[in-house]
């Protein structure tokens, strides 16, 4: 055993010392395993300086420190007192890159509640696709200009949107919208090169996809297979292809006198090609709230109000495995490098699951903090351990899956086994209140959330310098 290296800053000579073992899961930042003796009055900043010194980095990287699944927010001395630990025992400290608190950048207002948000790829410049409760979708530039708006093809609210081809990838970008009127529409959008005039581009749909009998709750597109899947409140999941020739043509039953009379007031929508699905998956017994593609494009995960997470094989259209939790689930996202699924529930928490067949436990951790149903989850574009959640309680929270501990799981014994944790940051709505319906996170735009306050709110963790990390929760 190596002799413990003695770190002795001049100001803290009279403080007791503690032996710590520094470790990290980030291979690029690893330091040789070496026990250190440090004064207990050190805080995060002191430890961060120490790690930077050990790594001999040219530019200091801010670090955060996890002890027993909890971020160190006080001095080590205070932590030991709180946890009732002795300073004579070596302490295992994990250091992670500091996640900067997302600061409020700005918000763009629309004329109705916004249900979903998608950020396009950054080249040439990111645009934000939003679906609105007034039945339209809208593309907004980062400066807040409305670049394009869909014609009112949807008779009712748009609940979900997704990009198919991002602007910049090809000459023509396309996206899908779906909502309360049970149809999915495919739209093409050609970004104009010259600066936009005052009125935005009106775009029309090319294809309508009809199968669902109730509200379509989510869409997911897989570029590698050119297929997309949609989930609906009618308990089904439908599989579609962007290649229209593969899909059967259907006739739209929209011709009764009843609906005609209703439609007469509005402008007549443009006619589109009506297509049916490749397959309909009927494994769920309650409204399906979200479906996403796995990293493997032939697999999909879906969550439903029937409390289950079902893994689907899209090739055979059969469910592969079903995990039943204890609460109705509203949202899901994958953390692929950790092979974890995060599912947001109507019971105000986020559960982490291991989707692999080999895992025994239903859930590995419970993350608590939201005060209403968690309806949107997005993983961090930068850090594989971090994801964000949007909830009906009007907040977006950022979570670190490393920051879970088994100690605090006693307060929620009903949620079964596993660990529990708290959120890293809380982002409130700048407008005060209102539900958050959707979040998206990209490297260059930041964390974008939309909601009942009719605003697209952009937050970004900026200022990589010496930021004091505060636990806002």
């Amino acid at each position: 055993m190596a002799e413990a290296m003695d770190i002795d800053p001049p100001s803290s000579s009279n403080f007791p010392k503690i032996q710590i073992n520094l470790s990290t899961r980030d291979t690029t930042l690893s330091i040789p395993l070496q026990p250190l003796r440090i004064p207990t009055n050190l805080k995060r900043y002191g430890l961060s300086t120490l790690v930077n010194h050990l790594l001999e980095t040219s530019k200091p990287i801010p670090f955060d420190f996890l002890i027993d699944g909890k971020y160190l927010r006080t001095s080590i001395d205070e932590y030991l007192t709180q946890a009732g630990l002795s300073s004579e025992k070596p302490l295992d400290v994990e250091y992670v890159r500091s996640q900067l608190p997302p600061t409020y950048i700005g918000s763009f207002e629309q004329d109705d509640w916004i249900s979903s948000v998608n950020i396009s790829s950054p080249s040439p410049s990111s645009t934000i696709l939003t679906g609105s409760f007034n039945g339209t979708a809208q593309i907004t530039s980062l400066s807040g200009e409305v670049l394009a708006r869909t014609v009112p093809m949807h008779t009712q609210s748009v609940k979900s949107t997704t990009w198919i081809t991002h602007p910049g990838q090809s000459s023509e970008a396309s996206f899908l919208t779906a909502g309360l009127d049970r149809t999915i529409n495919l739209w093409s959008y050609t970004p104009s090169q010259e600066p936009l005039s005052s009125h935005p581009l009106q775009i029309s749909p090319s294809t309508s996809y009809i199968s669902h009998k109730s509200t379509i709750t989510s869409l997911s597109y897989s570029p590698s297979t050119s297929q997309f899947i949609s989930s609906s409140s009618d308990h089904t999941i439908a599989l579609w292809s962007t290649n229209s020739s593969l899909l059967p043509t259907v006739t739209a039953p929209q011709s009764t006198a009843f609906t005609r009379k209703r439609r007469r007031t509005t402008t007549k929508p443009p006619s589109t090609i009506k297509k049916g699905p490749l397959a309909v998956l009927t494994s769920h017994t309650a409204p399906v709230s979200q479906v996403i593609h796995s990293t493997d494009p032939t697999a999909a995960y879906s969550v439903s109000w029937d409390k289950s997470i079902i893994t689907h094989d899209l090739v055979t259209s059969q469910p592969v495995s079903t995990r039943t939790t204890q609460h109705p689930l509203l949202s899901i996202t994958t953390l692929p490098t950790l092979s974890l699924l995060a599912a947001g529930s109507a019971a105000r928490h986020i559960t982490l699951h291991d989707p692999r067949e080999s895992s025994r436990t239903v859930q590995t951790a419970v993350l608590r903090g939201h005060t209403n149903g968690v309806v949107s989850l997005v993983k961090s574009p930068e850090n594989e351990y971090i994801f964000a959640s949007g909830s009906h309680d009007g907040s977006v929270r950022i979570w670190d899956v490393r920051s879970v501990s088994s100690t605090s799981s006693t307060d929620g014994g009903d949620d079964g086994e596993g660990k529990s944790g708290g959120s890293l940051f809380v982002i409130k709505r700048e407008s005060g209140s209102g539900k958050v319906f959707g979040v998206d996170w990209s490297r260059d735009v930041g964390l974008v959330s939309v909601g009942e306050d009719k605003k697209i709110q952009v937050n970004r963790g900026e200022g990589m310098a010496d930021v004091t990390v505060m636990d806002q929760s």
Partner: protein
Amino acid sequence: MPTKVTTRKRSRAEAEAEKPVLSSEDEFEIPEINGDEDSSDDSDFTAGDEDSDEEEEFSSGAEDEEEEQDIDSDEIPSEDEASPKENGTADHDASGDEEAEPADNVKVVTGADGNPRHIYPEIEPVYDSDDTDAEETNTIGNIPLEYYENYPHVGYDINGKRIMRPAAGKALDTLLDSIELPKGWTGLVDKNSGAALNLTEEELEIVKKLQRSEITDEGFDPYPDMVEWFSSKVEQMPLSSAPEPKRRFVPSKHEQKRIMKIVKGIREGRILPHKPQAETSQEPEFYDIWADDAPPKPDHVMNIPAPKLPPPTHDESYNPPLEYLPNDKERKEWEEQDPEDRDKNYLPRTHKALRLVPGFNGFIGERFERCLDLYLAPRVRRNKLNIDPASLLPKLPSPDDLKPFPTTCATVYRGHEGRVRSVAADPTGVWVATGGDDGTVRVWEILTGRQVWKLKVSSDEAVDSVTWRPTTEGRILAAACGNEILLVVPPIFDFEEETQGKEILSAGFGYAANRQGKKEAPGIWSKPDTALEEEGVVVTITVRKTVKYIAWHRRGDYLVSVSPEDVRRAVCIHRVSTHLSQTPFKEKSVTKGIPQRVQFHPSKPLLFVATKRYIKIYDLAKAELSKTLKPGARWISSIDIHPQGDNLIVGSYDKRLLWHDLDLSTKPYRTLRYHDKGIRAVSFHRGGFPLFCSSSDDGTVQVFHGRIYSDLMENALIVPLKVLKGHKITAHLGVLDVDWHPKQPWLFSAGADGTARLWN
């Protein structure tokens, strides 16, 4: 005042008289039930070997009765208390009269007590006094007269002169006696004839009888032979037509009471049926007065032995270990203390040998104190039961174990102007419909709280009730506004479902046309005007008076409406497939009271009609009243039937939530009083969760766990879970309606503050 006292006394006496009867009856049941088990005990008892203890019991029982009689007799003096008082005043008056005419020689003085006092003159023994008037009587003294038989005198007077013998007349008498008197001689002279008045034999007999105060009639028998009407002989015919009194064939309660007292004594061991006679030893009892312990006294309630003194400790030793010896400081401290404050009344001392220990100079004082302690401090045996009060509470599971249930407000549905009167969740669990005072029906998306459809039904009348047709095919919403019931297919559904719903509703139009011209139907089915038709309204049913509540039959073909204002046709059943309305109760007298709520039984052909005070269950198949529930509430506001159909909850405006088990009784099984104000709505969860809730004008919704066991012997388990607060009280109205999500443990509430809420 005295009468009041007596009535109270009497009632107490009656209560005391009744109480033992009741308890003895209760106890009387026990030996009957246990008769087989301990028949030996009974036989012992029936052998009737009453020994002295039992006699005691009897006598004590008699005492009890006497006590009761005493209490009874107490009434009389208390009632008559007034009369002696009156007498007293009368006496006083009389004495006043006497005062008015006092005798001459009597002096009247006011006595020390304030009353007049008569002082009579003293009697002086002078010659004038009465004594001197006394005549001289025989002075011969205590000498028998026969001594003077041979002398002419019979004695001597005070002066020594002889007192001569008076004339005896003995010779004359003997002469007269010797003359025989004729029969009937009276010695009287008949004034009319002058002859001697003689009496006949009969007359003499009568006179004699009169002298003996007998009845003079000849042949009258004052003591005739008695006819024994009531004899021990059994007669062929009864003497009286009065029925046999009940006491002849009913076991005597008094005897039963006495017997039960003995039985109780035997059970408690106070009375031993075959106790061997205590051998009364002739030897005198001695005891060793020098023994450490007093002879054990018989165990008795009043005998509480004195507590023992604690044994001596180390510091009371004649040579205690050093650490027990006080140092100078402690000694000084002890000496300075007041004797009463000292924790012990000695200082430990050390002596080389026990024989060197001096006498304890405070011995007498200490004994005296001990004696004072023993007889001044009352020793009471406390009959305090050592029971943890918590253990007496019923064992209820913790609410945490009964999750899930709604705890927080998840969504607020804002949009209604004015009160939201009614809320109903769609059977698919995706939509929720509300109706309000602004005359609109609105449909909302459950989680987001987005209003997806709105129908303005009326500008001046409120939508009092909305409810979805409880079937999976065809989405039909029924809404009651004013005296109209609208059957709507909201245009938010899939085309197929929408068409299906409209077909179901339109199917009956032909029937309605065929029935035209017959007698006036209670409800008129008609097509709405085009403005409403475009909004999705398919049929309107117009009844006479304002419809307050509507409920669907589980199959969705029948719809029942309540219009409490319509006296004759308050309850109306509408059939969707034939567009016909009928009133199941022709007369108001059938329901007796204004119907408030009506519900169909979830599985049987029963109709529950809640009037203000009663809930009547009608069998629709047999067309008869099958049961009447009496919840005891003053004004029922709402009812709901458990999805299994055997239980019922009733909410009332007098703050009570009542749970009825239909198999148990017509009285409520459980009464829950948790609300501060009247209950407006109650609801059972129908999607598999054992939950129910009540909403009240105090602005809260209370959620309960109500589990029903399939075992019929086990009663329902009711646990209050959560009070949901959030609705604001507006104009003394709180939460007006509640409904459960059909599948999830989510709750919808409609408030008077213009919002509806989702709780999860």
